[in-house]
C-alpha cells in the first residue's frame, strides 16, 4: 500500500460531517444478498438474529414471508415476531408496531416486497429506511433479481418479469453486506435441477445470476473501501479492482488504445477512464483529431477526464494515484525529438513515477 496524504475537498468534508451526524442516530443496516430463492438468505438472517439475541440484544422479526420452509421453523420459535398487517390480503410490515415496540434489532425479510395500495410507503425497503431513521438496526435479505438497475439483465436470464425492486443505491448505503453464495444445487448434490426438464438452462441461468450477485457485492465492497480511505485521507492503490487509465493525445493511436482498454476493463469487470491533459495552443488540426479520439472514448462508454496541469506526466500520475489506477495505457511516438532524448522521454518518466501500476506502451 502506498500511502500519501490526500486532503479531502470542502465538499467532501461537508458531506462527511453530514453523513456522520446522520449516522449517529441512524440504525445500522446489514443486508444478506443472494442470487436466487433457496440459497439460504433468510436462514442466515434469522440465524444472526438468534445469535444476537443469545448475546443479550433485543431482537424482533419485523417481516417474514409466509413459507413452508421447515429449516426456518426451529429458528423462528426462538424469536419474537411483530405480526404483519394485512390490507386486501396483501401483507406488509407493521412499521408503526415496530416503532412502538422499539427493539434494538429488527429482522426484515424480502426487502423488495411491494406494500398494499394505500400504505405510507410503496415498498418495504422504504419501510426499512423509516425503521433505520428511528435508530433501530435492521438485518435484511434481498435477492439480486430484485435490484432495479439489474432488472433488465436478470429478466433476460430468467424470462420472468419482476414487479418489485430495490434501488442499487440502497445497498450502497448499507453498513454491511454479506453475500450468500452457497449454491442451491451443488455439483455433488444437484438433485433438484437434475429432476427438472430444463435442468441445464436452469443451472446456467443460476450461474449467471451468481456472477451478477458476486460482482454487485464486489462493487458495494469497493465503495466501502473508497469511503474508508477517503475518510482517513489515504490515497492508496490497493488494486482490488482493475482500473485502466488510457492517456490520449491528438496524435495517439487512440482507437487501438481505447478498444484494448475497453476489452481489458470488461474482462476484469473493472473501470475504464480516458484522460487528456489539456495542452496550450492546440492547432486546429490537432483539435479535430482530439475530438475524434474523445468521441471514440464516449462511444465505448469510458469515463472521460480532461485534466489541467502544467506538466502532463505529473498530472497524469497524480490523477492515477488518486483514483487507484492499476494500468496506464500510453502512446509512444517513434519520432523522438532531440529534446525528448535530452530530458528523457515522456514514457520513461511515466514508468519511473508509476509505482505499483502497469504501464502499457502503444507505439505509433
Amino acid at each position, binding site marked *: 500500500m*502506498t500511502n500519501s496524504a490526500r486532503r479531502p475537498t470542502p465538499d467532501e468534508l461537508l458531506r462527511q460531517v453530514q453523513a456522520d451526524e446522520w449516522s449517529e442516530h441512524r440504525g445500522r443496516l446489514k443486508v444478506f444478498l443472494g442470487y436466487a430463492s433457496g440459497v439460504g438468505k433468510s436462514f442466515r438472517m434469522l440465524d444472526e438474529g438468534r445469535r444476537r439475541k443469545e448475546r443479550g440484544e433485543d431482537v424482533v422479526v419485523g417481516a417474514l414471508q409466509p413459507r413452508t420452509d421447515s429449516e426456518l421453523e426451529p429458528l423462528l420459535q426462538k424469536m419474537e415476531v411483530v405480526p404483519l398487517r394485512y390490507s386486501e390480503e396483501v401483507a406488509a410490515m407493521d412499521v408503526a408496531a415496530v416503532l412502538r415496540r422499539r427493539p434494538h434489532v429488527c429482522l426484515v425479510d424480502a426487502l423488495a416486497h411491494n406494500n398494499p395500495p394505500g400504505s405510507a410507503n410503496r415498498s418495504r425497503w422504504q419501510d426499512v429506511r423509516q425503521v433505520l431513521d428511528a435508530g433501530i438496526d435492521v438485518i435484511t435479505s434481498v435477492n439480486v433479481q430484485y435490484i432495479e438497475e439489474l432488472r433488465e439483465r436478470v429478466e433476460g436470464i430468467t424470462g420472468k418479469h419482476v414487479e418489485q425492486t430495490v434501488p442499487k443505491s440502497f445497498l450502497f448505503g448499507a453498513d454491511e453486506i454479506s453475500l450468500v453464495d452457497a449454491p442451491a444445487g451443488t455439483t455433488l448434490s444437484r438433485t433438484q435441477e437434475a429432476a427438472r426438464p430444463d435442468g441445464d438452462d436452469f443451472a446456467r441461468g443460476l450461474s449467471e445470476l451468481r456472477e451478477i450477485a458476486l460482482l454487485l457485492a*464486489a462493487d458495494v465492497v469497493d465503495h466501502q473501501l473508497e469511503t474508508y480511505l477517503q475518510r482517513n485521507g489515504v490515497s492508496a492503490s490497493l488494486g482490488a479492482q482493475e482500473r485502466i487509465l488510457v492517456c490520449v493525445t491528438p496524435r495517439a493511436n487512440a482507437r487501438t488504445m481505447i478498444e*484494448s482498454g475497453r476489452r*481489458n476493463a470488461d474482462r476484469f469487470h473493472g473501470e475504464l477512464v480516458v484522460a487528456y491533459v489539456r495542452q496550450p495552443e492546440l492547432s486546429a488540426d490537432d483539435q479535430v483529431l482530439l475530438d475524434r479520439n474523445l468521441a471514440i472514448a464516449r462511444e465505448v462508454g469510458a469515463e472521460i477526464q480532461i485534466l489541467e496541469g502544467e506538466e502532463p506526466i505529473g498530472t497524469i500520475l497524480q490523477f492515477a494515484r488518486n483514483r487507484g489506477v492499476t494500468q496506464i495505457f500510453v502512446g509512444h511516438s517513434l519520432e523522438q525529438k532531440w529534446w525528448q532524448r535530452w530530458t528523457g522521454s515522456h514514457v*520513461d518518466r511515466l514508468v519511473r513515477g*508509476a509505482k505499483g501500476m502497469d504501464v*502499457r506502451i502503444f507505439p505509433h
Partner: protein
Amino acid sequence: MGESSERGKLKVFLGYAAGVGKTYQMLQEAQKLKLQGRDIVIGYFEPHARKDTIAQTEGLEAIPRRQVEYRGTRFEEMDTVAILVRRPEVCVVDEFPHTNVPGSERDKRWQDVQVLLDAGINVLTTMNIQHLESLNDQVSQISGIRVRETVPDWVMQQADEVVMVDVPPPALVNRLLRGVVYPPDKAKKALEHFFKEPTLVALRELALRQTAHEVESRQLDGEYNGQPQRETNGQKSSERILVYVSSEPSSVMAIRRAKRVADYLHADCLAVAIHREPEMNGLQVAEMEAIERHLNFARNLHVEARLLQGSDAAKTLVEFAHVNGVTQLFVARPAEERLRSVFSRNIVQQVVRFAPDLQVTIVADRART
C-alpha cells in the same frame, strides 16, 4: 453423472481470511451429503480449537493422519494412501494450499488432492484468496505480507465449483475479539497486522471478483453439459501474450501478471528467456540458474516457457513474437537503480522500434514500498 471421465469433482470453499467460516461451511455441506447417504470421510481437518467447527465434524468418519518425523519433531499430514485404500465417494480436505513436511511424497497438499481426484474421489476443500498464485503481488501490495504457500491458478480453474464464504469484516473482527478464531495473544497480533480494516475489505473484494471470474469462466467453458457457449465472447481471443524472462527477480512478477491478464483475456501465454552465447558457460552460472528457475516457475503456472539463443536479445524476442503471432509483450520493471534508463537504453525501446505492432507492458513492482 454420466461423464465419460472418472475423475472426481473438486469443490473449493474460498474465503479472504482465517475465521470467515470456510471450514465450518465445508463441514456443513459434508453433513448434508452424509444425510443424503453419500459415503463421505474427513481426509484432513484442522480444528484450530474452534468449538463450533469441531462440533460440525460429529458423526463424520475421519481417516487417521499420517505421523511424519522431521528433524526430531513429529508432524501430522493427510494420509493420502489410507484415503485411496478406503476409497470414499467424497473426501473433506482442509487447507488446500498447505505445504507438506519435507520428505513427504508430494510437496503440496493440493498435489495430494490431485491424486485423490485422479482416483475418482470427489473432494471438498478450503482456501483463502491470498494463496492464489497470480494474486501474490497484489496481495502483498494490499497487506504488506508476502504469502509463501500458493496454489497455481490452473489448479483452481480445474475445480468444478468455487464457492465464496463471505462475512463482512466488522463481523470477522468481532469474532477475533471474542476469541473464536485464535487464542487471545495471537488474536491481538492478528488485529494489529493482517486484520486491519482496509486490508480485509480489499482482500474481500479480490475474493468476490475472483469468484465471479471463476463462475464466468465455467459458463464460457460450456461446463454445463456441453451447452452452447455464451454468444458474446465464447471463442478464444486473438490475443497472445509473451513474457520476457531474465535473471532479475522481478521476472516472477511479470510472469504472474502476464498469466493473469492472459487468463482473463482467454489468451495464450508464452515465456522466453534469451541466452546470448552458444555455450552454456557464456552466462554466469548464478544468472543461468536464476533464468532456469524463472522458466520453471512459468512452467508450473502452465505457461509455455523456452530458452532461446541470440546475440541481440531484442531482435530475437521480436522474431519469436512475430513467428508466434504474439500481440502483447510483458516485461518486468527494472530495479530502481537501473530505472533511469528503462526506456532510453534497454530492451523495451529496442523492441518498440523493431515491432511497432506490439503492445509492450512494463509490469508494476507491486511489493509494498
